[in-house]
């Protein structure tokens, strides 16, 4: 394994690990706050139990997210000193703001977790709201920094040195809005459906359990709307790609030749040598229609770039199709649930819907990972698109396979432990017998 590949792998593992906890840290506090608010309004202790359980889960996941985020902030320098030396002054701004947002989140999470008996109910709920807001803000700031890597603006490069730096313009890169919107919605959809899926699974076995009914309801309120809106934000993101990062879109769609009236291809096996996508399902004109809202628009293919500037077409194409497929499934299930709720059906008795939701449990997170594969692998061989190649940014230190394996092992162990703790602490049904038989008719 070359040092470059080891560094990329370590960064990839670190990001793939951290993103799970970051996503949960954005959406989980919202559910916690909704549950607590319902407890304050209705007085049903079941909501308090939910809020406390979700808070415990948030505590575990936030702690792992905080330390894995620390690792990432250091790894920018440990693995990519060439990148940070060049880009630090341009995109340090969103990172600094993220630092403050994260700080606020940590402070109010401390207040929330340990303050149940120390502050007024209103202040406690306010602390939860502060956690939810600053969590979303810190996620958005980090995505802004990544957006700049995809669509770099706000500087000029003269003889290898950056001049005329404008950090504000760099934060407002063309990719900023599409990426931030897509990622924020993804966080709510993935976490909402993961939680809803677990409780749907448990409801299938124990349909009268009021605890799981309430949990399912709140999780769907957080995840459902986001899943429904996600295809729209995906469209915005794809149209951004078509204009600003055409090679990434071409790889995602395995579109080898630039053409008018380009078809949308689903699946298939990209044959790089032959320059075609074999065995794919093609929908004529659909790609032009989606990318430019015009069936005859010209879509740039991979042939626009030199061969050594192509990303890994297989990985990007499969990741993209996987993300779209999973996102579509979540949107359809969300629409189904919304339709039934609108018809005033009791969702907890819709066994087929519950099965569909239970099936969705891991899908949001897999879609998030696949989406980041598209973003990050699709930008290669560049670390800053069109400006700096990844291989020119890597640290000169040899033997990078050692830290890669060390951190991978560390994260594997942590991942297993976290799953086990969550299972034991959060997911098991409450043992309080009266809630098992305590039937609360569904309002939704």
């Amino acid at each position: 394994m070359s040092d470059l590949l080891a560094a990329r792998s370590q960064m990839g593992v670190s990001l793939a690990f951290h993103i799970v906890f970051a996503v949960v840290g954005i959406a989980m506090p919202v559910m916690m706050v909704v549950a607590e608010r319902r407890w304050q309004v209705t007085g049903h202790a079941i909501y308090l139990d939910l809020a406390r359980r979700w808070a415990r889960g948030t505590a575990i996941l936030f702690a792992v997210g905080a330390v894995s985020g620390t690792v990432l902030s250091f790894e920018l320098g440990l693995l990519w000193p060439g990148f940070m030396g060049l880009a630090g002054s341009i995109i340090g701004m969103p990172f600094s703001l993220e630092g403050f947002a994260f700080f606020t989140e940590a402070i109010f999470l401390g207040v929330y977790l340990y303050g149940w008996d120390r502050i007024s109910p209103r202040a406690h709920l306010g602390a939860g709201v502060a956690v939810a807001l600053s969590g979303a803000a810190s996620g958005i700031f980090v995505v802004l920094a990544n957006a700049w890597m995809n669509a770099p603006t706000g500087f000029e490069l003269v003889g290898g040195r950056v001049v005329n730096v404008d950090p504000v313009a760099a934060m407002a890169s063309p990719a900023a809005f599409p990426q931030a919107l897509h990622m924020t919605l993804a966080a709510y959809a993935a976490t909402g459906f993961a939680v809803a899926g677990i409780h749907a699974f448990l409801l299938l076995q124990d349909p009268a359990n009021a605890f799981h009914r309430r949990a399912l309801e709140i999780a769907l309120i957080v995840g459902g709307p986001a899943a429904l809106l996600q295809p729209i934000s995906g469209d915005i993101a794809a149209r951004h790609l078509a204009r600003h990062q055409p090679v990434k879109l071409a790889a995602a769609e395995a579109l080898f030749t630039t053409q008018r009236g380009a078809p949308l291809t689903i699946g298939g096996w990209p044959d790089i040598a032959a320059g075609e996508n074999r065995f794919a399902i093609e929908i004529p004109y659909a790609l032009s229609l989606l990318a430019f809202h015009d069936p005859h628009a010209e879509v740039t293919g991979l042939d626009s770039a030199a061969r050594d500037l192509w990303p890994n077409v297989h990985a990007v194409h499969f990741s993209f199709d996987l993300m779209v497929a999973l996102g579509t499934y979540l949107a359809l299930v969300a629409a189904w649930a919304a339709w039934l709720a609108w018809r005033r059906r009791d969702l907890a008795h819709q066994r087929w819907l519950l099965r569909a939701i239970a099936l969705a449990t891991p899908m949001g997170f897999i879609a998030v990972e696949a989406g980041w594969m598209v973003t990050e692998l699709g930008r290669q061989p560049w670390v800053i698109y069109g400006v700096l190649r990844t291989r020119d940014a890597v640290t000169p230190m040899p033997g990078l396979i050692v830290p890669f394996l060390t951190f991978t092992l560390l994260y594997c162990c942590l991942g297993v432990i976290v799953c086990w703790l969550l299972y034991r602490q959060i997911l098991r049904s409450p043992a309080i017998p009266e809630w098992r038989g305590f039937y609360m008719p569904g309002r939704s």
Partner: protein
Amino acid sequence: MTLADLLAGVIFVALNAYALLGGADFGGGVWALLASGPRKQHQRELIAHAIGPVWEANHVWLILAVVLLFTCFPPAFARLGTLLHIPLSLVLIGIVLRGSAFTFWRYGGAEDEELRHWGVTFAIASLITPLLLGITVGAIASGAVFGARDPDTAFVAVYVAPWLNPFTLSVGLFALVAFAFLAAVYLTLEAQDRELRADFRGRALAAGFALFGAAALALLLSGRYAPLVRGGLIFASWAIPLHGLTAAAAITALVALARAAWRVARIAAAIQVSLILWGWALGQYPYLIPPDLAIADAAAPAVTLRLALGALALGAAVLLPSLAYLFRVFKRGPAAPA
């Protein structure tokens, strides 16, 4: 003073806060490991109780320092990441183990046996991480992290030798003892009952004296390994007053401990450790990374520095009241007399 100097100062303030707050949390882990005597379990409980609400926030001071460093002084960050890759990676592993073990310990809902394992992991990581942080600081202060190198230099000479020598180890030891000292002093104020307080007073006094020893050792070794900082610390115009103040704070802290003036001890100990840190910073000024990377040379363009300062002002407006609230809720003054 230039804008770059100001921002370097702000970064150092963040590091100072990390040492006083996050450092004390590390120290707490050390005392959890060394818990002994009839109140062993109570000592551990007190430590966990004191750290619990604030430690995530305390940790963020480090992240703030890092992001400000790479925003305002990108070449310095790039160089530290390259040449101190190994100790910094080890620090990260320590931080990961410590942070997760603490949460698993407190929130894992484990039974006794497993709980102890998490407690031990937390405590051992608390012991190793400050040592490595100190080693990293020692490497920077010694001037071994310099830029231009012959490309044929051996791996060990470039990536190991700068941070592994008697001086850096003595700085690591000093950091560990300083953090343990801070934690013990703070815990005298947190303890609710007299006996527990006496436990930590004894530990604070022992650590306070050990701190003198560790400081003397580091100073002795600095003559050979860190001449630049040593020169500053001894010959600069501010040196004598600074040492006088540090000594006064140290003596005040020890006397206050002996006389059970817990609040005075806490403030004096915090001042003592801060003054030592600022002595290091002044000793290597105007260099960010001695002997060749000055603050002015490493600084980002002025527009970035101005915006970073603006972001700091904005962030502080949100952060300081929030922090004040956090500490008011959970660290409300001296405990009621037992």
